């Protein structure tokens, strides 16, 4: 019952019903119109035939006299398929013709008796029939009635009427059938979509809405929704992976912090242990700050103020900041400025991104025999590009995407200090500036390149 109510409630059903109703009314209209007109045409044909005959009879009676009229009528009456003829005297007594009986009142007035009347013929086989007739007063007070049976026209009307009733019934039945199948199909589709949606709501984001494969409007809708779900799933996975990594990456320093605090308690505060505790806590704060910074950069384009800045002074500052460290480590750090381009940017963020890149290069470029780092600014096709290239171990091609995610570190670098957040921030900064971060193989080593659109 509930199912039926649902089916009645679908758009398909409502449309089917409306169409059936409209077509029904139209069809009935056409049938009524056709049968009415057909009837009228038949009757007017009968009328003109009868008129013609009366004229003929009138002419004959004038020429030959009323006396010869009776035999003429009798003769005509006996012809096969004859019209109705009746001659009566002024009192209404039937004198001649092939009509045995009819309503006598009809004879009292001249002219057409259009509403069909009942009559009885003389021949036995003929039952009572319907006819229309014209009454005519002959000289001498005789009345002549000439008419024609309209049974054929009536029968025709009945056939048409029956045919249209049948076809109407077929139409309604087809409509109902159509409604049933279309409605059921739509409902079935919607039911399966609702079922999948419920599973998705319950947390199974790997579910997708079913497609019928016909490419119809339902499929198109399901397709867009599937794309939406996929995006949500991706974001959700991202959040989960990140919170897992945060939990994982912070567990070690927190445990260490706790153990050191415990040790400090035992030895009544050895200063070195306390210093270690502070630096552990500082490390944690740094990680949190970096995480906060990344998410702020990723989401908060609104709050960061961009100015038109020439890039070369920023590079010079960062180079100058790192130069002593590189020298200390025996790394040859070179600065190549090949562009004086200005870009709309936040000096702070660009500087921080470069700091992260150089920091990485110092850490991972060391493995080379003659470690070299090149910090370079150049222009190409409307973009300013800043590259930091080292000749260290580099990052294998298949990992280059991954290392720009939060907390992703190469296994080989896990032993080195660092939070695994550096490149994630660089990527976020590049994105915020409508640019991008590209990692490539420097053979050997890694090239990290930030491209930024040049201000116009």
């Amino acid at each position, binding site marked *: 019952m509930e199912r039926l109510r649902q089916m009645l409630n679908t758009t398909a059903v409502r449309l089917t019903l409306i169409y059936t109703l409209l077509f029904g009314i139209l069809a009935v209209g056409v049938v009524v119109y056709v049968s009415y007109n057909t009837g009228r045409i038949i009757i007017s044909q009968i009328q003109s035939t009868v008129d013609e005959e009366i004229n003929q009879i009138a002419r004959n009676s004038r020429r030959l006299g009323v006396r010869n009229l009776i035999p003429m009528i009798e003769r005509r009456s006996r012809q096969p398929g004859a019209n109705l003829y009746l001659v009566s005297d002024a009192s209404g007594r039937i004198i001649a013709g092939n009509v045995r009986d009819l309503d006598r009142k009809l004879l009292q007035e001249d002219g057409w008796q259009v509403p069909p009347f009942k009559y009885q013929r003389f021949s036995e086989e003929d039952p009572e029939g319907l006819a229309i007739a014209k009454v005519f007063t002959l000289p001498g007070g005789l009345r002549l009635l000439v008419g024609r049976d309209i049974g054929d026209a009536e029968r025709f009307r009945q056939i048409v009427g029956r045919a249209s009733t049948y076809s109407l019934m077929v139409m309604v039945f087809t409509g109902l059938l159509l409604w049933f199948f279309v409605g059921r199909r739509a409902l079935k589709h919607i039911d399966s979509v609702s079922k999948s949606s419920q599973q998705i709501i319950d947390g199974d984001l790997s579910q997708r809405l079913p497609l019928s494969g016909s490419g119809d409007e339902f499929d198109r809708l399901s397709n867009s929704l599937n794309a939406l779900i996929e995006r949500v799933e991706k974001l959700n996975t991202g959040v989960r992976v990140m919170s897992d990594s945060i939990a994982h990456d912070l567990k070690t320093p927190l445990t260490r912090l706790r153990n050191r605090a415990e040790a400090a308690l035992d030895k009544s505060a050895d200063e070195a242990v306390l*210093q270690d505790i502070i630096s552990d806590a500082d490390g944690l*704060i740094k990680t949190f700050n970096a995480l906060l910074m990344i998410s702020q950069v990723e989401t*908060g384009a609104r*709050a960061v103020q961009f100015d038109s800045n020439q890039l070369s002074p920023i590079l010079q500052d960062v180079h100058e*900041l790192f130069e002593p460290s590189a020298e200390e480590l025996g790394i040859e750090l070179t600065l190549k400025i090949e562009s004086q381009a200005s870009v709309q940017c936040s000096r702070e963020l660009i500087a921080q991104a470069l700091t992260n890149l150089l920091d990485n290069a110092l850490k991972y470029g060391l493995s080379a025999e003659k470690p070299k780092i090149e910090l370079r600014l150049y222009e190409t096709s409307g973009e300013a590009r800043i590259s930091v290239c080292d000749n260290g171990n580099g990052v294998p091609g298949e990992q280059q995407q991954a290392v720009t995610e939060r907390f992703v570190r190469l296994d080989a670098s896990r032993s080195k200090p660092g939070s695994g957040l*550096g490149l994630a921030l660089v990527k976020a900064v590049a994105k915020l500036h409508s640019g991008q971060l590209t990692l490539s193989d420097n053979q050997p080593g890694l090239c990290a390149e930030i491209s930024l659109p040049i201000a116009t």
Partner: protein
Amino acid sequence: MNVLIVEDDQQLAEQLVASLRENGHETVHVGDGLAGEHQANQMAYDVMIVDRMLPQQDGLTMISNLRRSGVKTPVLILSALGQVDDRVTGLRAGGDDYLSKPYAFSELLARIEILGRRAENQSADTTVKIADLILDRIGHSAERAGQKITLQPREYRLLEYLMRNEGRLVTRTMLLEHVWDLHFDPQTNVIDVHISRLRAKIDKDFDPPLLQTVRGRGYRLAHPESADE
């Protein structure tokens, strides 16, 4: 120093009060922006520590109101927001320094000590002297025990900042801010290398060493005997 703390987080405020007292500062604590404005108008403080988000009236409004009514007390703004531009808007509203949560207490202490004594440091003296180290602010050079020391421009700015804040702890973040004009947390030891280069120039061949490392916190430039910690 007299420190006014305007902070609505009770726990954090209590911790701040206790730690500042331990370091020899007087503190007054209020919990909302209106009370803070009232207090600051009533009494002369050396430094104010103001949280950005406060009940009644937010920190920035409070600071700009105070500045309009002529209160010049240096303000350190604390904030949980901590984005680059928050700092800019904070300073524009009349704050003097900006620190985002979570912060290390030593960082906060170093900053308010420098803020509180800033007035004394605005001297137009052309030379600054610590022990036998003399900084020439016109020639951008230095000499120690009568020997001329050649400094790179950045080294000069580093030394000048350290000397202006004689005897006080200066954190790496503060150095990056004031010497390089970069406002972020240096994740690396780049600053340390600059310091050790400077140290090689001003301390290596001389006695006593003036540039001290405060482990886990930062640096301090002072005559060893005059160091109070």
